[in-house]
């Protein structure tokens, strides 16, 4: 594996997921990558409603799939949207980006 350009080792996060969901997980994670793009656009446009909606959905969906960290980020986004705290919104969007880049999934009952 090629090391990151900044010389730092990439931290990997391994998550165990219910094998029944194996078929759905790649699509779920791809949808969250789309959410990152949508959040970036929302932050740029000051669109707090979209941030709240996406955060809420992540909060509800992430843990159900087995990604509690996505639920936690979603909850923080939803709350930050309520306060219009753009600093936290950007931080959590970056945290989601990092998580999606670092996560490795294993399917285990």
């Amino acid at each position, binding site marked *: 594996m090629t090391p990151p350009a900044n010389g730092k080792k990439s931290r990997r996060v391994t998550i165990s997921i219910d094998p029944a969901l194996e078929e*759905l997980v790649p699509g779920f994670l791809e949808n969250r990558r789309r959410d990152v793009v949508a959040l970036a656009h929302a932050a740029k446009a000051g669109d707090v409603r979209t941030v709240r909606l996406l955060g809420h959905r992540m909060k*509800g969906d992430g843990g*159900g799939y087995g990604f509690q960290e996505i639920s936690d980020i979603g909850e923080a986004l939803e709350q930050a949207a309520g306060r219009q705290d753009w600093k936290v919104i950007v931080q959590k969007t970056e945290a989601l980006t990092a998580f999606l880049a670092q996560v490795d999934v294993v399917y285990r009952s």
Partner: protein
Amino acid sequence: MQDSCATSAGTVVQPSLNRISQILSNHSDQSVDFATDTQISRVQPGNGKTALVVDDVADVTEMLAVLLSHAGYEVVTAASARAALDAARQRQFDVIISDIGMPEMNGYQLAREMRTLPGYETVPMVAVTGYSMFDDKERSTNAGFNAHMTKPIKRHTLLEVLQACEGYRRT
């Protein structure tokens, strides 16, 4: 905890709450509440029964559909309350699992309308919600739901709730 309770219709029933208490104690991280005017019997979930899953978020309906299919249910999904009512008019489902916070027509409205459909007066209905503004269990019960779960939904909790719901019949 009550040993019996009076329903809105004035009927006194004897709820079997031991099973519910067991589920709650086993899943302290998952909020689950049951209507108390129900009777519960232990039957394996699934076994070819049909489930209608209602949520406006495809990631949720797909996940629940897969989990329920693995548990032996035949699953139909609906992306809105209106679509769910249309599906329920076309065929009889054994259990309904519905989100509350949906656009146009929410889960409470769906439950009320569903209860007026022939054949759906007593079908078990489970509410699931992630919105704190919809986290009103009494309102779910009054609308016609038998149980109320808070997202994220855990597989084992859902299946245990459905297992408890098999045989549910609201009075």
